[in-house]
């Protein structure tokens, strides 16, 4: 008998070896996010012997995409790759990826919370990538500094933010509110939760012929307000802070309030502990609150690998979807759980009330507000480039080179030129 058992053991090993594969997963996060991804990778490799995942950090979302493009063009791309929200349309049309719901039809994709799904699915509802490090925009306050001005709750409205900022200023806080005026914050999340579109065709979900429309209306008003508040000394941009970055300025106690990603919570909590107070991002009075968009990034399956490698990729995706994996990831980073089951598991656990998980409740709450056709996400071509254009133009306005309205008009013009070129580049391609 010992002989046969040895044999069958050998056979089993051979069988599993046939399926076993090494895969690479490329990601862009750095800092706390990177540590958490590496930890997840190590946990996956420790949890089973069949497959091995190597997680390769590329030092930034944009670099990751650039390397992926070069790698794909020369056939050396990984099986799995993380991409950030703004690259969604480029990838959907690239012909380089497989929709994740076709790749793994057995998985319960309906378990993903709506706000997380809608960004990465087609207008018909086909999910293209697995939401991973999901974040959204929330509002941060420094309890200690707010107390100086006698403020005991974070303002819910922008009017309230301005009022609180004036009180803080009067109480000697030099930097009441900090932002970098990045379009993710002041344009995309702002428009989504106010129920506004930034471009026609429901922000591009309806077709490649979309056009930017944000330069008239509340977004323009909001940016003009920000510029005015900055003149008044209520708002500081990155360049105005000693730290040089709004999150750092908040974490060091230089600034009392900021609007930031839930993904910034890990570092803020590590720096300030229970002084950090968070809430949903403020609205202007008279608007109904809609959902905010999911930020962060999702995982895409790239074409051109063997079935064995895809088995490993499925195993890895399954592993990352596990409730406890998501909860651990949330704890370490401040990113929000992206499935209902993980959220329920967190709520049911005794850690639900712990401060480390504060973003999970508020972030998911914000993502789950009633939505509309304009708050699903952004599906616009060369969107990464547009973000740079938006930053460049508004920065000129903030530093006095042009009026805010002129800045937004020219950002929209330049953005539309990009959209037309994108349309032409993918001539004949059908938006899925």
């Amino acid at each position: 008998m010992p002989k046969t058992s040895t044999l069958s053991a050998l056979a089993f090993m051979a069988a599993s070896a046939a399926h076993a594969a090494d895969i690479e997963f490329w990601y862009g996060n750095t800092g706390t996010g990177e540590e958490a991804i590496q930890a997840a990778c190590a946990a996956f490799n420790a949890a089973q012997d069949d497959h091995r995942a190597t997680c390769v950090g590329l030092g930034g979302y944009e670099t990751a995409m650039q390397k992926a493009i070069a790698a794909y063009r020369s056939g050396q791309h990984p099986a799995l790759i993380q991409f950030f929200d703004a690259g969604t349309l480029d990838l959907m049309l690239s012909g380089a990826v497989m929709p994740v719901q076709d790749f793994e039809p057995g998985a319960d994709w309906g378990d993903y919370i709506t706000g997380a799904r809608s960004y990465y699915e087609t207008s018909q509802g086909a999910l293209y990538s697995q939401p991973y490090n999901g974040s959204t925009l929330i509002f941060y306050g420094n309890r200690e500094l707010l107390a100086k001005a006698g403020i005991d709750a974070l303002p819910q409205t922008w009017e309230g933010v301005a009022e609180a900022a004036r009180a803080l200023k009067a109480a000697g806080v030099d930097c009441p509110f900090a932002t970098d005026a990045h379009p993710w914050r002041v344009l995309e999340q702002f428009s989504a939760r106010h129920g506004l579109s930034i471009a026609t065709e429901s922000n591009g979900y309806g077709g490649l012929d979309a056009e930017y429309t944000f330069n008239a209306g509340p977004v323009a008003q909001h940016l003009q307000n920000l510029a005015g508040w900055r003149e008044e000394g209520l708002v500081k941009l990155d360049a105005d802070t000693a730290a040089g970055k709004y999150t750092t300025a908040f974490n060091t106690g230089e600034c009392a309030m900021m609007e930031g990603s839930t993904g910034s919570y890990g570092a803020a909590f590590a720096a300030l502990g229970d002084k950090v107070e968070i809430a949903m991002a403020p609205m202007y009075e008279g608007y109904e609150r809609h959902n905010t968009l999911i930020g962060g990034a999702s995982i895409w399956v790239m074409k051109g690998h063997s079935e064995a490698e895809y088995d490993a990729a499925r195993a890895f995706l399954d592993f990352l979807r596990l409730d406890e994996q998501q909860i651990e990831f949330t704890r370490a980073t401040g990113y929000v759980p992206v499935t209902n089951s993980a959220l329920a598991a967190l709520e049911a656990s005794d850690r639900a009330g712990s401060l480390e998980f504060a973003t999970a409740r508020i972030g998911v709450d914000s993502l789950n507000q009633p939505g509309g056709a304009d708050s699903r996400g952004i599906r616009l071509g060369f969107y990464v480039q547009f973000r740079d254009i938006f930053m460049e133009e508004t920065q000129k306005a903030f530093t006095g080179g042009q009026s805010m309205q002129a800045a937004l008009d020219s950002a929209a013009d330049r953005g539309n030129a990009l959209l037309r070129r994108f349309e032409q580049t993918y001539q004949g391609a059908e938006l899925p």
Partner: protein
Amino acid sequence: MIENTRSIDRVATAILIAGLAFVLAPLAVVVITATQSYEDFLARNFSLVPGTHFAGNFREIWTRTDLPRQTLNSVIVGAITAAGRIALAVTTSYAVVYFAGRGRGLVYAAVVASIMLPLELMIITAYQVTANVALPLDAVANMGGWWGALFGAPLDLQWNLLDTYAGISVPMMAQGSCTLILVQFFRTIPPQLARAAIIDGAGPLRFLRDILLPLSKGPLTALGIYMFISAWVQYMWPLVAASSPARTMAVVGLARLQEDAERIPDFPLQMTGAILVTLPPLILIALFQRRIVRGLTLSEK
């Protein structure tokens, strides 16, 4: 000097001292800041009072960052690039100066033209070529589809050099200034030497090995050191050609230290890193200053 020009000398001295201050002051600030601890720095901000934390900063650079490894990468890439550039320049300039043939003017022009446009200008497509060096073979094979007609499928060779030492250094060798300098140097060597060698029965390669190379040892060393330093201080190409921290060069690694978000930048640590990254080429410059200067000025006459 000819006349008594004390006042002019005084002005000149003042200018030189100002110049020295301008060059040395930033270096002094780097060294002083590197001795301060992060906490001191946060408490006092900018200060010219030296601290006592240099060893601590250095230990942190050594153990917590990739800079030591990246410094080694710089040594490797610098050496490969310098050796490669010298070797390519020696063979080409030898061919151009000592060989008759219709092609040599063309060769020389093709090489010298590359001085005008640095790699930085064509970074996008140079990156693409490095991502697949077999690109021209594929293109030729598939032109008109003859390869596909013969072998059933279009040729699709892949040879990615990104993130390898070769991929970082070989594109930096594609620059003709070394050849220009060496051609000018070889032309100063009396042709009688080569004629004598021929009479002695030495072939072209023997002459190169036994006579020309030993004669050029001085300029070649100076040029080699200069090229090593030039490769060391490159930034843009190493930035895009290498992505993994294991292949990144030291200067790029230093710039990445800047990106540590979430807190006030640890300037003492950055400045310690700057010392590590700058010291090796600085020592070379200080040691071989005369030679390098002689090599450089030789080329300009």
